[in-house]
């Protein structure tokens, strides 16, 4: 069973967001990494770039497939997980900790209001099987 920690917000495209004041840390969920299988490549925006809610902001590539990453928030990228770019397998090992992708300074903190909480996301992925 894929792990779904409390305290995070979740998208239908299987990204997670941790909000701390106006800084959003974004990654992909355990369910996502399990479905993708071995991740071999991750493409992320650079520090200072702006990303837009619901738009692709990066790419995650596994042996099986290529998937776009969709931004759950609008804002400016203030930090990129550099070690992850060197070792994409961190996403498989620790999707919620070492596998985080970017930190974004969010324009409007209400961006996360339409996202799912842990219980709702759990239900969502159970339906997907």
């Amino acid at each position, binding site marked *: 069973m894929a792990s779904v920690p409390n305290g995070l917000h979740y998208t239908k495209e299987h990204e997670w967001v941790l909000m701390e004041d106006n800084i959003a840390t974004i990654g992909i969920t355990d369910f996502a990494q399990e479905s993708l299988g071995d991740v071999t*490549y991750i493409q992320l925006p650079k520090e200072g770039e702006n990303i837009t809610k619901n738009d692709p902001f990066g790419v995650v*590539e596994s042996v*099986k497939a290529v998937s776009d990453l969709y931004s759950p928030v609008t804002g400016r990228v203030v930090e990129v997980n550099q070690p992850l770019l060197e070792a994409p397998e961190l996403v498989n090992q620790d999707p919620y900790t070492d596998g985080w992708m970017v930190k974004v300074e969010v324009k409007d903190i209400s961006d996360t209001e339409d996202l799912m909480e842990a219980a709702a996301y759990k239900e969502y992925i159970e339906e997907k099987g």
Partner: protein
Amino acid sequence: MVPFAGYEMPVQYRGVLDETKACRKSMGLFDVSHMGQLSLRGEHPLRELQRLVTNDLSKLALHQAQYNLLCNPEGGVIDDIIVYRRTEEEVFICVNASNRLIDYAWMKEHLPSSVSLEDQSDQTGLIAIQGPQAEHLMSTLISPSLVQNLKYYWALDTHLDNIPVFLSRTGYTGEDGFELYLRERETEKVWNLLLEKGASFGITPCGLGARDTLRLEMGYPLHGHELSQEISPLQAGLFWAVKLETPWDFVGKQALVRQKTEGAPTALKPLTLLDKRIPRQGYEIVTTSHEMTGSITSGTFSPHLNRPIALGFVNRRHASETQFAVKVRNDLISAQVTSIPFVPSKVKKNTVK
């Protein structure tokens, strides 16, 4: 699980890269029961079959197997198959799952009534045991001398735990190993027995993902990718399995002779990429001067080279070039022409080609 040619197949059990590595390090176990099996009996079945295939069946001794191609009159590949001279009376043929009905209809149409063709796919299971420990495991289950004396591309009928099996020293991984044809209803029992007895040898169940990565590391073609009704075996580099100097005719021979003289329009190139992005089927191949020249037919990430590898066709005009680039989304990634196998093969070579 994913649907594949009417079967539910696992893409992976534990992870494609882990399974790929385990097979090369110790041993992989594959359920490939989706593969099709045809049986040909009657008067001179080998001689009759020879009129449909590119390789030289006259070299085939009793109990020997041979890689072969079934071509259409234009020289395109209907299927790539393994032909076994199973007994004096029977020729046994392993075919690709997705081509099985096409192969059967084609052969039925072109073979005389003095031979009879039977599709045994639904009653036949197939398990592959591949890797450096395969011989050790099989030696604990079947007479060790029989197992050890069975050469690459030889096969015979025997028993495993009192279950009749057709044991073949073949595979699709480049490792030493075996393929076991058996009755469908006994497949699960033998699978579980192999898992149990293989545990101390480090046996690992492998899915379709690992199978594809392992075959691609060897540069083996896969029908639907490197081979098709529109692609000739010469384009795919399978010169060794196409015997054009023989006195007999076979379907497609004239077209292949012409193509050999005139040159094929495209050539298959093994490529390694200096990036971590995986080239996938359909991605464009361009020359160093940015001219579009072909496309990728298969690509994966090789855990043994720690980089992506691929096969793809390029235009004959660029066939001698050693550097290309592959268009991955908006980027051009450098690709170096490599020799195959990408990873050294460990099969016990003493086959008759």
